[in-house]
């Protein structure tokens, strides 16, 4: 189905874009790293303030196996919490969107909780699930993810166009049919905006929770330990790994978005209108 649509509407813009459009960003990146390196050397900036990119890169290579293995463990915590929080958020959104009474009762609290700094509960989940148990960190991530996903998906389910709903009603369509054919597709763009918010949040939640202690072989602990030993380039190399993981996860969301809703304005590949 997706493939069929892609061929029906060939990607005019991406064809000419590709490499050419990435060039300015690549030049900017090289310039920025060069400037950074030059500044650190010329101004003799101390490594604890800002290590040179070359020093960071050296550690990134030298300590690669340790950092990546830590990164992988952190990634599992982030993804575990992300999946749990997203599934929970979607399920609750269906209930909340379906019954107005539930909505009126629950939404103000959801919005209030969403405004709280949820990472702060990490010591509590650690007490609950145990310091060494990755579930302690996943629980924090899940909570951070849950509210944006739930609130946005609820809004999406309720955003269906009034005429579209009248049309379905004119056909005597069942509630389930309206949900499947109109409400869920209408919620897709809202759900994906939520995902784009919570994917970076999930890594933040995992790493910050790790600062509170627990197994040593995770990114958060790696960063704190190295910083305490004044091995700042190592700490920065770990942040580079965290950045790569974050960008990777975010790219997967963008890809999923293109596959799931090729029809939406934000991802349309052609527009003849």
């Amino acid at each position, binding site marked *: 189905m997706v493939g069929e649509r892609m061929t029906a509407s060939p990607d005019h813009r991406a064809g000419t874009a590709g490499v050419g459009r990435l060039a300015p960003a690549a030049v900017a990146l090289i310039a920025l790293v060069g400037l950074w390196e030059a500044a650190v050397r010329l101004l003799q900036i101390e490594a604890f303030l800002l290590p040179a990119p070359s020093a960071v890169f050296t550690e990134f290579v030298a300590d690669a196996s340790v950092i990546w293995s830590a990164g992988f463990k952190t990634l599992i915590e982030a993804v575990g919490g992300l999946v749990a929080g997203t599934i929970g958020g979607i399920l609750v959104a269906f209930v909340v969107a379906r019954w107005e009474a539930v909505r009126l009762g629950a939404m103000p609290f959801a919005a209030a909780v969403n405004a709280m700094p949820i990472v702060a509960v990490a010591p509590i989940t650690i007490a609950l699930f145990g310091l060494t148990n990755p579930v302690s960190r996943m629980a924090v991530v899940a909570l951070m993810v849950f509210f944006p996903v739930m609130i946005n998906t609820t809004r999406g389910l309720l955003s269906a166009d009034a005429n579209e709903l009248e049309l379905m009603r004119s056909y005597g369509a069942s509630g389930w049919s309206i949900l499947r054919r109109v409400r869920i597709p209408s919620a897709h763009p809202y759900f994906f905006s939520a995902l784009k918010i919570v994917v970076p949040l999930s890594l933040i939640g995992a790493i910050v929770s790790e600062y509170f202690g627990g197994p040593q072989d995770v990114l958060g602990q790696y960063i704190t330990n190295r910083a305490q030993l004044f091995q700042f380039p190592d700490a920065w190399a770990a942040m580079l790994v965290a950045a790569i993981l974050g960008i990777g996860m975010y790219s997967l969301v963008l890809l999923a978005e293109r596959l799931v809703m090729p*029809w939406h304005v934000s991802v349309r590949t052609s527009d003849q209108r």
Partner: protein
Amino acid sequence: MGEIVAARRVSKVFKTGKGAVEALRDIDLTIDPGEFVSLIGPSGCGKSTLLRLVGDLLTPTAGELVVNGKTPAQSRLDHDYGIAFQKATLLDWRTAIENVELPLELMNVGRDQRRARATEMLEMVELGEFVNANPWQLSGGMQQRVAIARALALRPPLLLMDEPFGALDEMTRESMQQELLRIWRETDTTIIFVTHSIPEAVFLSTRVVVMASRPGRIVDSMPVDLSHPRGVDTREDERFYTTLTEVREALRGR
């Protein structure tokens, strides 16, 4: 039986935060099969409300309403009517043909039969080449054609149209009117057509129902004495102009 719509002393009151609003008062209207009836009147005269009462998208507060010999609810569940809005209201996540298939799908028509019928309908509205187009790739007029094809996919005896050409430019609008008259003649469908435009109402209809507001009510029902098929010449016919004037005066309350 006989008539496809029969309304007797139908009223509709909306309860709002600021109190009750009388949208329609004592509507008496009968429409015979094969008629093309336009509802015309100022904003707030309840013409769209009346259309929605017939379609059972709203329920009358008082009065008796019979559609196709049944209650409006039964008639809706039996798919006795198709509907089109000012906005084409195509589902963006479906191609043109998938949009036309929607009502057939909801009636559990088999896949092959659905495809065949939807293709036939798109050909009728002269969009045979755009079967697999996405809605946003079509012009406003083309989108509205798809919407009409969808409304007629189940061969309903009645077609309800709520200012379907209101958002189109004048040129497209006139060609769509021509197209709609052709479809009306080819399909034997009874059409109830809500519009703001006097020339549109006169050009299309066999009868123009003039409404007034506060409360919404019918003030006149005027047969249009213009021969069929109608075309460019009709718009230059002297009787076309006299009817325009009559409708305009009825709208002004004479």
